[in-house]
């Protein structure tokens, strides 16, 4: 039994039950209480939990933890972000459209060097504020929640030429193609597509087969499609037949 596996099981348990006792974990994982205490200490340092007498409770005030509780797809988005990290090279000029997964991606891409990142998402821009090795350009436009859209943003966009567009979408389906939930988002993405050499479409597996209101185009606008590992087999066949590489972000090996 390896530490990584133990920590994962403890985390899952805590997210489900919010609190746990040392004795319970020790019998569940079949290791001594001393080992469990050490694991809990480690997780406390990460801010994931608070140790209490004979056990631990989930630290719900921690931002990462509360995100994980609110957004059921945190882990999936994280896996997707790991894959995208390996598809972007240093020195690339990329665009990240607004979306929760793209925010996770931004967190990973911070570690790159000399990246130029365009975005219309304020939170993504904020992520890069403490990454001085990279170049962040925030588009201007009409603010709607955490992102900007509209004619201003599109005009802004026209000044740039991109290596790589990473767009997060709200649905991919056989009949309607790639779709998003607002017309202003759709037109901004369509404009960005024209400026990009490579187009990567990010979509959670559960959103395949979903139809949102506004259509961006056929799935073939994508040079790559990235999703998480629970994608239904039917869509794997469909996308392979369209000759688009499909990345399912399997996260399994503990190297």
């Amino acid at each position, binding site marked *: *039994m*390896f530490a990584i*596996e133990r920590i994962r*099981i403890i985390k899952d348990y805590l997210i489900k039950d919010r609190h746990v006792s040392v004795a319970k974990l020790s019998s*569940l*994982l*079949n290791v001594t209480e001393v080992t469990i205490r050490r694991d809990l200490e480690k997780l406390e340092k990460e801010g994931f939990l608070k140790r209490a007498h004979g056990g631990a409770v989930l630290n719900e005030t921690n931002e990462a933890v509360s995100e994980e509780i609110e957004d059921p797809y945190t882990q999936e988005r994280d896996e997707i972000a*790991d*894959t995208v990290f*390996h*598809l972007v*090279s240093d020195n690339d000029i990329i665009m990240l459209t607004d979306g929760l997964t793209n925010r996770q991606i931004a967190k990973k891409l911070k570690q790159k060097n000399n990246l130029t990142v365009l975005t219309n998402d304020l939170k993504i821009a904020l992520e890069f504020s403490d990454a001085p090795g990279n170049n962040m350009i925030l588009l201007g436009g009409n603010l709607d929640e955490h992102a900007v859209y509209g004619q201003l943003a599109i005009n802004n966009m026209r000044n740039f030429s991109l290596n790589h567009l990473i767009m997060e979408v709200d649905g991919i389906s056989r009949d309607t193609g790639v779709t998003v939930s607002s017309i202003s988002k759709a037109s901004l993405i369509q404009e960005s597509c024209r400026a990009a050499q490579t187009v990567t479409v990010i979509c959670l597996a559960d959103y395949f087969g979903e139809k949102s209101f506004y259509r961006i185009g056929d799935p073939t606008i994508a040079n*790559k499609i990235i999703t998480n*590992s*629970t*994608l239904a*087999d*039917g869509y*794997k*066949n469909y996308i*392979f*037949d369209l*000759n*688009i*590489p*499909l*990345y*399912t*972000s*399997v*996260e*399994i*090996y*503990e*190297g």
Partner: protein
Amino acid sequence: MDTPLMRLEDISLSLENFSLKAINLDLYSGEIHVVMGENGSGKSLMMQIISGIVSPDTGTIYINGTPAKQKLLSSGLTRDVIYIRQDATMLTQLSIAENLFFHNIPYRSKLLRTIDYDKLNYMCQNLIDELDLPVSVYDKVENLGFAQRQIIEFCRAYISDAKIVILDEPSSALTQSERELLYRIVRKIKEKGAGIFYITHSLEDVSLLGDRVTILKNGSIMGTREVSECSQEEIIRMLSGHYIKNRYPKIMIKHGETILSVRGLGFQEKLYDINFDLKEGEILGITGLAGSGRTLLANCLFGAVDKVKGQMYLNGSEIKLDSPYAAICNGIALIPENRLTDSIFAYLDVNNNVSMSSLKRFANYFLLNTTLLEQVVADYVSKLNIPQQPSNNILEYSGGNQQKAIFAKWIMSRAKIFILDEPTRGLDIASKIDIYNSINDLIRKKAGIIFISSDVEEIMGICDRVAVLADRTFVCNVPTKDVTVEKVMEMSISREP
């Protein structure tokens, strides 16, 4: 020319993962018709249809211009068609003479069924003299080498009265002199007026022997040409056909330290002087034709065969692998080509199959913590999208899911070097995609992959380097971005015997 001896018209057959599409082919008497195509292109299936072992879904086979009933082909007509396969089917306890004349044994007394050995051996000696074979009448087949057995098989085709002779990759395992003997026999069969379908991967066979050549790819015929009017380049171009390289999910990984170095690896007469390095996060593709020793090389690297020559270095220090156990202890995993016989424990359930290589982690003195084991296995099973029914027998799962379970087994053992021998052959597309993406996960976390495949397109799509095995050694080892599919195909075709 006159009516063909045999003509296939619009033959189609669909199997689970493969189909032959509208095959049109003919064979004239006294003709050597060479059939080429990469592994899995449908050559053998087509020959099975011709010899009546398998019936097609649609289409007609004409023999001498009259449609042959499939039933006839598989019973009465088999005397007209003789199919010599790669795996020699002989009675090993009997002599050469007895084997050759098995269907035509001379009797001293018909009633008592006593065999006239003098006559039998005389007939056989005549044949041996006629063909100048390097064997004796009295040799038992079990004492013969593989190549000699094959030669005897070819003689069976020669003495039979079959009008249509099918030879399935007859030259692949032969040396130069044996090959010349084969050519002599094949030409004699031709002189008798029989038509010959000759399956091969060797361009040399085509130019020395063939009258016409037909190229198959993915179950369709790419074209049929007169050998005299057709250049080698044209044949190679037809063999490689139209390739799509960009549909494989490849990720860019910075390669780390060299984890495995192989120097001067050799095995018997079959492999010699194989050198390569494998780095962390690298995928090395190995391709080559059937019989080029791909699987043998995998077994050598995994310690599954004895007396391997050469040195292997793991992280810079030399290791000796005298058993698969030693390889596993050193973090080397092998996913063998033949799933059913070499990979799975058919009578165990998925849990036990998946955890087989990592049982130590669940051991508590002499007992296994099965609750924990089940939990961890369920985790791996769900991450690899294997439909969850963990108590079921592994045989009840589809091929794709079995292969994914085998993958899970080695991933769970946390091996560092994965040797994958044809990991995606015969799988459905969805399982293939799962396997490619799992490989991406492995290299992201610094494992090294040796990816053996006969599908050149797949190799070019997902590997960083490609090595081609031909003539018993690597004829190249280059980054995939520096070569084309056509070039790799060309190199894999044997130049010397």
